[in-house]
Structure formats: structure tokens, C-alpha cells
């Protein structure tokens, strides 16, 4: 095994410390039992288990993950047409995670699911619809007209950026399995392009997800990874949370802190 340089060690310690501070803030931010918080907690711990197993063990997160998974059990799987996109996403995240991890959970009603997907499209939320459909196909629930390709490229920059990160997140089942080589052609090219835009527009939440993606494709040592991680560290507040001003108005601080937590913990892994 190659000897670690002192710089790498220092970086590792710095990121591990940032991750621990992030974890404390994340636990506080998600301490209320809303559907969105419950799903986010479970999702972030699930990602840490697969992506940063050392950090997961050191922080004894197994118990928290188990209780977060149990906390998803009472979440409704109803998808009324007027349900806000983020709330629908939280319910589907909960169902998908329970299925992935082998817990029994009721499936969404196929007809309601189709109606909800059409309503998301009509409301200008194609990204949520695309992610939900991918998750459905992944666990064997078929939906009409699903296309793995992103047909809305150029419609919204923020959607395009989250589409790139979700290619990696979904293909790896939220970091619980490695990315098979060759699965996603031209992925690195897409990631680097997204890095450029995310940094230029100060989309910190996207930057955190992109840093995770670069770690997944084995680019921890790439300059873009360093740039993104530095950006996240700059935006970490005294309480350990990470703010994204472009998302703060929507109350998604917990999401940005959770994504940064995974990015810091994943970046702190030994090279």
C-alpha cells in the first residue's frame, strides 16, 4: 500500500473533523419527525454505510440507521395529485429504501402513481418524475413511458445538474453498490461540466453531490474534487451545517448539510 503523504493525512483529518461537525448539525436539523426529515435521515445514513464505512463504524451509526429505517414504516405511500413534489419524493424515497434494504412496505397504487407522475410533468417538475420512475423500475415496478435518457436537457440548469448527480446516485442505489465500469458512457465529461456550472452559480448542494460522484468514479485526487470540497468547507457554519443560499429559501438546509456530510466523510477515506 502506498505511503500516505502528510498532506493527504492532514486533508483526511480535516475532512473527518468537518464530517463529524456536519453529522452533529444534521442530527439536529432532522430531529423533527416530518416525512421529509425521516426520509432524508435514512437516506444519508444509508449512503454513509456504503460510501464511508469507516466513518459509519467510528460514529456508531448502525443503530441510528436501523431506527431511521423503522421510522419510515408509518410513512404513507399515498400520492395524491396535488402532493408537493418534495413530499412525494420523500414518500417514494422511504418506500424505495425500505425495499432496497429488505423491509416489507406497501407499494404505491399503480394507477395513482401514473397520475402523480403526469401531474409532476404538468407542474414543471420533470426531474422528480424521472427520479421516481428510475427508482420504480429499479425495484421492478413498471411505469409507462420511462426513458433512462434525460429528455429535458437545456430546460433548467439546476435540473440538468441534479440529473447528472442522480445518474450516479441511482445507478449505485444510493452508494450501496459500486458503479460498474462502462455503465454510464461519457459520465466523467458530464460530471466535470456540471462541476464548472455548480461552482460558477454557487450551487453548494449540487457541489456536495458532485463531490460524492467524483469519489464514486475514483476521482478523489482530481482538482475538481479539491475545488468542490474547499467550497463546501468555506460554506460550513459554526454549528457544522452547510448552507446553500440558492436553496435556503426552500428550507433545504438539512439536505445540503446531509449531502456535505457524505462528501466530507467519503473524501476523508484513505486514498
Amino acid at each position, binding site marked *: *500500500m502506498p505511503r500516505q503523504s502528510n498532506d493527504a493525512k492532514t486533508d483526511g483529518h480535516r475532512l473527518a473533523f468537518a464530517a463529524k461537525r456536519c453529522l452533529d448539525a444534521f442530527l439536529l436539523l432532522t430531529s423533527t419527525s416530518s416525512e421529509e426529515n425521516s426520509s432524508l435521515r435514512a437516506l444519508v445514513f444509508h449512503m454513509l454505510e*456504503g460510501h464511508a*464505512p469507516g466513518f459509519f463504524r467510528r460514529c456508531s451509526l448502525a443503530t441510528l440507521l436501523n431506527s431511521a429505517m423503522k421510522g419510515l414504516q408509518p410513512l404513507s405511500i399515498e400520492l395524491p395529485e396535488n402532493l408537493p413534489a418534495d413530499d412525494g419524493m420523500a414518500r417514494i424515497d422511504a418506500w424505495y429504501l425500505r*425495499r*432496497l*434494504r*429488505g*423491509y*416489507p*412496505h*406497501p*407499494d404505491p397504487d*399503480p394507477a395513482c402513481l401514473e397520475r402523480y407522475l403526469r401531474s409532476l410533468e404538468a407542474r414543471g417538475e420533470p426531474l422528480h418524475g424521472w427520479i421516481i420512475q428510475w427508482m420504480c423500475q*429499479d*425495484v*421492478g*415496478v*413498471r411505469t409507462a413511458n420511462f426513458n433512462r435518457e434525460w429528455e429535458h436537457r437545456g430546460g433548467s440548469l439546476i435540473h440538468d445538474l441534479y440529473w447528472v448527480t442522480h445518474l450516479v446516485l441511482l445507478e449505485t442505489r444510493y452508494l450501496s*453498490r*459500486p458503479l460498474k465500469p462502462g455503465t454510464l458512457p461519457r459520465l466523467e465529461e458530464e460530471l466535470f461540466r456540471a462541476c464548472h456550472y455548480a461552482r460558477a452559480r454557487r450551487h453548494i448542494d449540487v457541489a456536495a453531490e458532485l463531490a460524492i460522484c467524483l469519489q464514486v468514479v475514483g476521482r478523489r485526487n482530481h482538482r475538481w474534487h479539491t475545488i468542490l470540497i474547499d467550497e463546501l468547507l468555506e460554506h460550513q457554519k459554526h454549528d457544522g451545517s452547510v448552507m446553500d443560499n440558492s436553496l435556503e429559501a426552500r428550507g433545504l438546509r438539512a439536505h445540503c448539510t446531509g449531502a456535505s456530510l457524505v462528501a466530507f466523510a467519503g473524501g476523508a477515506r484513505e486514498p
Partner: protein
Amino acid sequence: MAETQPEPSQEQADLITPEEIENMSPEDQKKLAYNIEQTAVMLSELTEEEVEKLQAMPWEKLDGPAEPDAPLTDEDKAAYREMWDLVQDGTTTMAEVLGYDEDEIMKTYSVGAALSDQGRYDDALKIAEGLLFLMPKLVPGHLLKGEVLRKQGRLEEALEAYNAAVSADPTYIQSYFERAKLFFRAESGQYFLMDIQTIANLDPEAKTPFGKAAQKILEATAEELKKDGLSDEELEAIGDALDDAMLDIDEDTIPEIDEDGNQIIK
């Protein structure tokens, strides 16, 4: 009538300890490594410490060492450690590291299933655990483990095994069916119906025996399903439908899987 304890198999009686393996010549280690049945049984009996000893073995030399008697070098150890890390993060499996192909794995699964059918549950469980050491996401391995534990009356452990089967591949229909049977036996009506509904969603055209069974159960219990709670009589009606549906399933059928390990739906 009390069941008689089965005699230990010859394979079990001849089990070799990790220390003995370490002292073998590479040629003998190679012979042993290719004897998957024995290896699978043996691996399942190892403690964590013993597994670590096995990790230090120069497996990469098994395919034709240049110097068979050369001691393990630091480079060898580093190469093995790297391989072990790949196993840990799921990039590869111990089966790939040790050079087992799918036929050998499925043959071992068949041996385990046969032992389970013969009532040799401890032996079958060891085979299942050995298979899962080699391929942690092997659904038939989890199902075999669940089946044996269910037959032994260890229902909570059986449920864990079926949960692991669902987790290993959430689209593998048989896992939900086996778990549904367990829920039914445990009188967890709500969970039983959830899994039956999931089977129907995974196989809406009822192309598999499990899909057909789920459809039958759902048709027979459509009225009961509309209610929130289920009475004993209603559960009994579902049980009858389940028994009826089960008659159509050949339980001895080994699940067919394609090259990627997915269940084949005909």
C-alpha cells in the same frame, strides 16, 4: 415421533482447519480451493480471526505460481489486501477471487437444497452460509438459508434471511413469496398481504408461478383486502387461498437466473 439426529457427513468429518491449510503446499491449497463443497462448508465455520488468516493466503498464486514454495512476500500480502478491500466494497466477490464460476456455485446450491430436503438442516445451513461468504448477494443462498431456518422453527432468523434476499435483489419475485409464507405462518396478515401485492406488481401478467399464486390469493381475498383489520375467519380464507395457490408451485424448482444473476421470467 422424535426426529433422529442425522449422521455428520463425510465432508464435515474431514474438515480441515485454517492452520492446516496454511501449512499445505500451494498445489494442495489449489486442490482444496477448487473443492467448493468443502470450502463452502469450511468457510462458514470460521471465526473472524480465522478469516483474517485466510485473507493472508496467497490466493493469486493458486493459478500457477512461479515459485510454489516461496514464502509470502509483502507484495503478495499487499495484493491480497487490495483484493480483500475490493471484496469488502462489493466490487468483486470471494467467489471471483477464488475462481468459482456460476455452475459451481449453483451446483453447491443444489447440494444445499438437497440436504435441506433430506432434513439435514445443519449441513444445509453451512452450505448456505458458505455460499453467502463467497457471494454475499446470492439470492438463492439467502433463500436456502431462510428455508432451513424456517424448517428449524427459527422464524426470526429466517425472516432476517428473507429480508436479506429481498435486499440483495428487490426484483427477485421468489424472495417475496417465501417471506409472505413466513409472515402467514407468523400470523402477520398485514405484511403477508403487502408481499403478495408486491409480487402481483412485479409480475402483473402472472408469468411466474409466484405471480399466478399471488393473483389467485388476491382474487380469492379481494373483499377481505378492502378491510383494515382481518378476523380469524378472514385469515383462514386467505390461508385456504394460499394453500390452493401453493399447489401450483413446484417447490423443488431451482430458480433460473441469467448471466447477470437476475431471475428469468418466462
